């Protein structure tokens, strides 16, 4: 199998691998060209979303739909998150509970949107976009990738925890001294 034909075959296979590697990976939902979206029939999953069946340790379905609370952390306003999961696709909107116009004008994370996919590893991988305005003199990044762990305690309680160390420089926190949104830590609203 070391003849010229096999060498040619290996070369062709190599070309195929490189072409495959260069093919853009499937775009995340924020960047899926919306024009290609088709109308979602009632009860069907949106394009690009797949069924998933996550269970707690006691066998209950993990349902992320609903209202979640981000408690006050590091002096940040508490906020409320509305989350919708359709299959393995997740959308979320987080808004400060009691922002005032002045507060809003000074905080980009007063309104955030999340879009991602839930994996079988109980991790939501996606992106967060800050919709609040850019505070003066702050360095920030409106759009950043996030990883959110779905933590389940011994009682079956679910917590959503952004996989990021508070104050540590990174895409969500390009300027730890000047401006750094607190990592998400969401508990279900009761």
């Amino acid at each position, binding site marked *: 199998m070391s003849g010229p034909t096999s*060498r*040619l075959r290996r070369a062709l296979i190599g070309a195929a691998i490189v072409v495959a590697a*260069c093919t853009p990976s499937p775009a995340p939902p924020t960047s899926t060209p919306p024009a290609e979206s088709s109308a979602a029939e009632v009860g069907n999953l949106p394009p690009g979303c797949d069924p998933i069946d996550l269970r707690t340790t006691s066998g209950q379905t993990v349902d992320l739909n609903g209202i979640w609370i981000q408690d006050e952390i590091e002096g940040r306003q508490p906020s409320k998150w509305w989350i*919708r999961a359709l299959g393995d696709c997740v959308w979320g*909107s987080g808004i400060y509970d009691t922002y005032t116009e002045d507060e809003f004008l000074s905080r980009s994370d007063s309104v955030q949107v999340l879009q991602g996919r839930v994996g079988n590893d109980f991790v939501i991988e996606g992106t967060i976009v800050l*919709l609040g305005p850019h505070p003066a003199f702050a360095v920030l990044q409106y759009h950043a990738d996030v990883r959110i762990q779905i933590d389940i305690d011994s009682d079956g309680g679910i917590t959503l925890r952004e996989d990021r160390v508070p104050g540590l420089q990174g895409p969500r926190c390009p300027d730890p001294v000047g401006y750094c949104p607190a990592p998400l830590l969401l508990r279900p609203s009761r």
Partner: protein
Amino acid sequence: MPGSGRLLSGAAPPPTEQVISVRALGLRIMVGLALLGSGCTTSMAPTPPPGPSESPAQPVGGLPPGCGPIDLRTPSGERVDLAGTWTQVDTPGDAATTWWIRTLGDCVWGVGKVDELPEDPVPATVQHLTGRIGSDFVIEGEIVLVGPAVVFPNTSIYAPVEIIIEFDDAGQISLREDREHGVQGPRCPFPATYCPRPVILRRSGSGN
């Protein structure tokens, strides 16, 4: 062609020639691989630089993957910037709703939330918009009803939308969902049960 003649005649080329031609082909493929690899590297390079429409306050990070620069102008030549707060209008009897919008290049994200959460909220209490702005001044995207958990029967939680960017005589921008209220469609599959009002927004605050 001599080569064709040999193939047509059924005579196998000398083994050395076959090896040479295969090696040459392999070499060409390897060169192609290298070129392809460099092209691939180039195409996967960091996101394109912000286009002319980017706000001066554009922070670090450039445009997200999949978003392209765009430069829309009002009839008077001013740059169209949708970022900021908007108010839902034309909702007689409905709760007032605030929308927050962020644009990065031609990508748009938005959240609409009723100002005072009702005791019996409907799915459209909080809506999540993502889309792309076209040079035709139309945002094509999707709206997901994210709140609350109570789901009305026959509700389309996810639906494509078209939102038109319009200007009045004074150059003021409004955003209007291209749909008639109460008319059956993807956003309103069963008008008799539940039908969110079309999004019609007027600017209430700057985004930067």
